[in-house]
């Protein structure tokens, strides 16, 4: 049985306050010193539909959303129906009673009926149904009460004292109702270790990318609305004007990447954010960015594809297009984030690399991480190294694409006397003049690709999880890394010899680091959430490693249990 690590799932009708309850408990746990990791699904409908919020709180670091909930709290029959197959003996169920349904409670499930709707009605505050539920949950599962009260009070403060008091009353009624019940289950949130130096923020992946961009010094942002990436733009829109920057909503993704290139040519740090369909539209302009050596950052918050696909579901299936999207031989840098902390840090890295190498940098996130909130160490802006593009010193004749040892040629901002040049998608000479000479094309392609060879030195070494030889080495990327971390901990605890390898730079692939990892592993497992096994494809193509693919594409992330099971099967 798990200790000090609890997963609560709250489900109900969209608009019933499911998300608020989840957010409040998450904030309260983080405030009390627990590590938190959340997972949400939203209804595809604009209003109504089933909404779910799962939160995991622990006294130990949490890397993923967990296997399955320990506690299920449902506001209505639809939420119960959606989850009842997952209810197993030992789980706790908190449900609205009397409600719109009568649950056929499976054997061994600890059930707690709470009159959520009825109590809210009695209090003449039907909107506070969720607060009744939250009060009951706090008592039943030891959710830090003082923190919960503080969060509740501060979140409702701007709506006035009456609203704060109304919600507190409902919360307290929920507590009383729960105290009257006989608790039979073993679940409780652990008591956090006191750490006076602990300083955290709680953010979603999308907001963290926006923050990373602000820290990196983004000056221009253009995007087109698309699920699940829009919140990146929403966050930046709110805060970029404070830094004197410009955010514009473009007429389509082609326009947004075009505007980004125009702004970058004009000397500004510029980015866009999108999802797979938008990235597909940007392909031609990504080629122009490589050809004209114009820095730009493109965030791809992946969703289920192809085509319109599963817009609100989780998938890691854009690696092919991120690495090779566009025509011709076209280079770029591709980074991939594991968690919210990466969303901040690797966005800064993406800008630094774009500025230094004067090329497109694609940062990959995914639909789960987009909305997952996690507690992360306070990201002090002063702790980040910020790189700016090398600019012409004004001496001698200016050649925009001058051949240098590094392949990097200084840029110049428009308005600078003596620096006039053309940025062109046509093949060109070092001066920028169009040239279709075969020999020149070979020289210039080599210039543009050679500079990317040094990128690996500017990104931290790929993390290896574990030491010595392993029977199974697990390579994975993106959000699946957090799942594999926990699976490896569990397997190790049972005596299995397993190791993990967690690349964040996916192109150019750090081939030597892959080879080194492979040397110590008898077999290699590569789980990823897509049909084709996209990273496995690149690993097979570029290294001597022969990973065994484990792919799923059911719209949900892996769970640690799935990885544990697969490893055991391989070694059986």
């Amino acid at each position, binding site marked *: 049985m798990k200790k000090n690590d609890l997963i609560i799932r709250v489900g109900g009708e969209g608009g019933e306050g499911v998300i608020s309850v989840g957010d409040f408990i998450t904030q309260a746990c983080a405030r009390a010193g627990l590590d938190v990791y959340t997972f949400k699904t939203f209804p595809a409908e604009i209003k109504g539909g089933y909404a779910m919020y799962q939160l995991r709180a622990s006294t130990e670091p949490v890397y993923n959303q967990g296997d399955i909930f320990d506690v299920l709290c449902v506001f209505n029959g639809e939420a119960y129906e959606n989850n009842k197959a997952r209810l197993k003996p030992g789980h706790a169920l908190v449900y609205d009673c009397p409600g719109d349904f009568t649950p056929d409670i499976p054997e061994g499930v600890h059930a707690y009926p709470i009159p959520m709707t009825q109590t809210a009605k009695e209090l003449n505050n039907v909107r506070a149904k969720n607060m009744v539920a939250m009060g009951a949950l706090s008592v039943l599962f030891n959710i830090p009460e003082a923190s919960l009260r503080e969060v509740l009070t501060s979140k409702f403060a701007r709506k006035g004292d009456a609203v704060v008091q109304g919600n507190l009353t409902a919360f307290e009624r929920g507590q009383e109702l729960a105290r009257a019940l006989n608790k039979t289950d073993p679940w409780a949130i652990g008591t956090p270790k006191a750490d006076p130096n602990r300083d955290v923020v709680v953010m979603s992946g999308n907001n963290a990318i926006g923050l990373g961009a602000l820290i990196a010094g983004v000056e*221009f942002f*253009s995007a087109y609305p698309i699920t699940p990436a829009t919140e990146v733009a929403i966050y930046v829109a709110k805060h970029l*004007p404070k830094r004197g920057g410009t955010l514009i909503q473009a007429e389509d993704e082609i326009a947004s990447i075009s505007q980004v290139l125009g*702004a970058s040519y004009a000397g*500004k740090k510029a980015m866009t954010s999108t999802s797979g369909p938008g990235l597909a539209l940007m392909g*031609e302009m990504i080629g122009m960015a490589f050809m004209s050596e114009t820095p730009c950052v493109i965030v791809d918050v992946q969703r289920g594809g192809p085509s319109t696909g599963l817009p609100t579901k989780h998938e890691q299936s854009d690696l092919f297009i991120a690495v090779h999207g566009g025509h011709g031989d076209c280079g770029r840098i591709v980074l991939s984030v594991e968690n919210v902390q990466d969303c901040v840090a690797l966005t800064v890295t993406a800008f630094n690399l774009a500025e230094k190498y004067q090329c497109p940098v694609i940062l990959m996130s995914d639909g789960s991480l987009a909305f997952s909130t996690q507690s992360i160490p306070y990201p002090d802006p002063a702790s980040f190294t910020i790189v700016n593009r090398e600019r012409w010193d004004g001496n001698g004749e200016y050649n925009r694409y001058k051949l240098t040892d590094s392949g990097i040629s200084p840029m110049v901002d428009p*308005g600078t006397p003596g620096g006039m040049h*053309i940025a062109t*998608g046509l093949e060109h000479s070092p001066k920028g003049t169009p040239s279709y000479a075969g020999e020149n094309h070979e020289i210039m392609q080599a210039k543009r690709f050679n500079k990317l060879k040094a990128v690996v030195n500017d990104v931290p070494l790929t993390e290896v999880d574990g030491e010595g030889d392993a029977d199974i080495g697990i390579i994975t990327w993106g959000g699946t890394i957090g799942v594999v971390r926990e699976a490896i901990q569990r397997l190790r605890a049972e005596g299995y010899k397993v190791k993990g390898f967690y690349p964040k730079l996916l192109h150019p692939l750090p081939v030597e680091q892959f080879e080194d990892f492979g040397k110590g592993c008898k077999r290699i497992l590569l789980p990823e959430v897509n049909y084709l096994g996209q990273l496995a494809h690149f690993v097979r193509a570029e290294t001597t490693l022969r990973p065994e693919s484990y792919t799923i594409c059911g719209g949900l992330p892996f769970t640690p249990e799935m990885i544990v099971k697969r490893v055991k099967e391989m070694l059986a």
Partner: protein
Amino acid sequence: MNAPVKVQDRFHEVQLESKDYREDLSSFWCPGCGHSGVLTSFLRTLAEIGIKPENLMSISGIGCSSRLPYFVKSYKMHTLHGRAGPVATGAQLARPDLAVVVTGGDGDGFSIGGGHMPHMARKNVNMTYILMDNHVYGLTKGQTSPTSHRVMKGSVTPFGAVEEPLDPIMYMLTYGATFVGQAFAGNVKLASQLIKEGMEHKGFSFINLLSHCPTYNEINTAKVFKADCEKLDVGHDVTDVNVAMQVVQNAKAEGRIPTGLFYRVERPTLDERMAELVTKVGGHKEYDLRKVIDLARP
């Protein structure tokens, strides 16, 4: 806080001749091409407004006309087919103190790039868009374009075009461009006057220059353009979009091509509105980001 420098404040900083703005690169166009007239008009304008070459960003897409920036001393971008407009929008917003001029063809602007046109107009991006409209695709050797006459035979329409042409002028008047004019490219006097007024105009100025293609368009020759183009009476109210539309439609109904300035109004530009936003929130480059991060404390 000082008012931001607008590009129009930076005119008349130098006295140069039009040849001083010409890059030392031989022409790309066929002999007798109308585009040479556009280049002549543009260079003359630059001399008249006295802009320093480094304060100009000349941006184009793909096509015969999109080669124009190569011949103009300036900062410049030769971008993708149809995308000059949004690239220029980004550049202009990044540097509102520099002049931005887009040059491109009818296929570039109104076929592949057609989706961007309304948005530059309605957003009132402070730049000048010169359409070099020869009613044909030249670089791909003679296909009909969105402005081709219906009867035109192109290489892909050997029996004649089956579609009606669109009218760039009515299009731009409809979508809210704040400056709309048209001239025959061979009429350097009128063309350069319109470009000059367009560049002086604070906002999105659209100038359609009817430019003959001697190689692939036998219908809209220089002779035909010259004969059909009739300068508009400057008497009409150029601040009334309905009047402007009526004047254009009347001329067309009579089989004439209206030229001159049709419409000009002042309205805040996109970069001005962005700057207002920054002022409103008291924004500045040194704003302490920790204030933003603190919002995420639990």
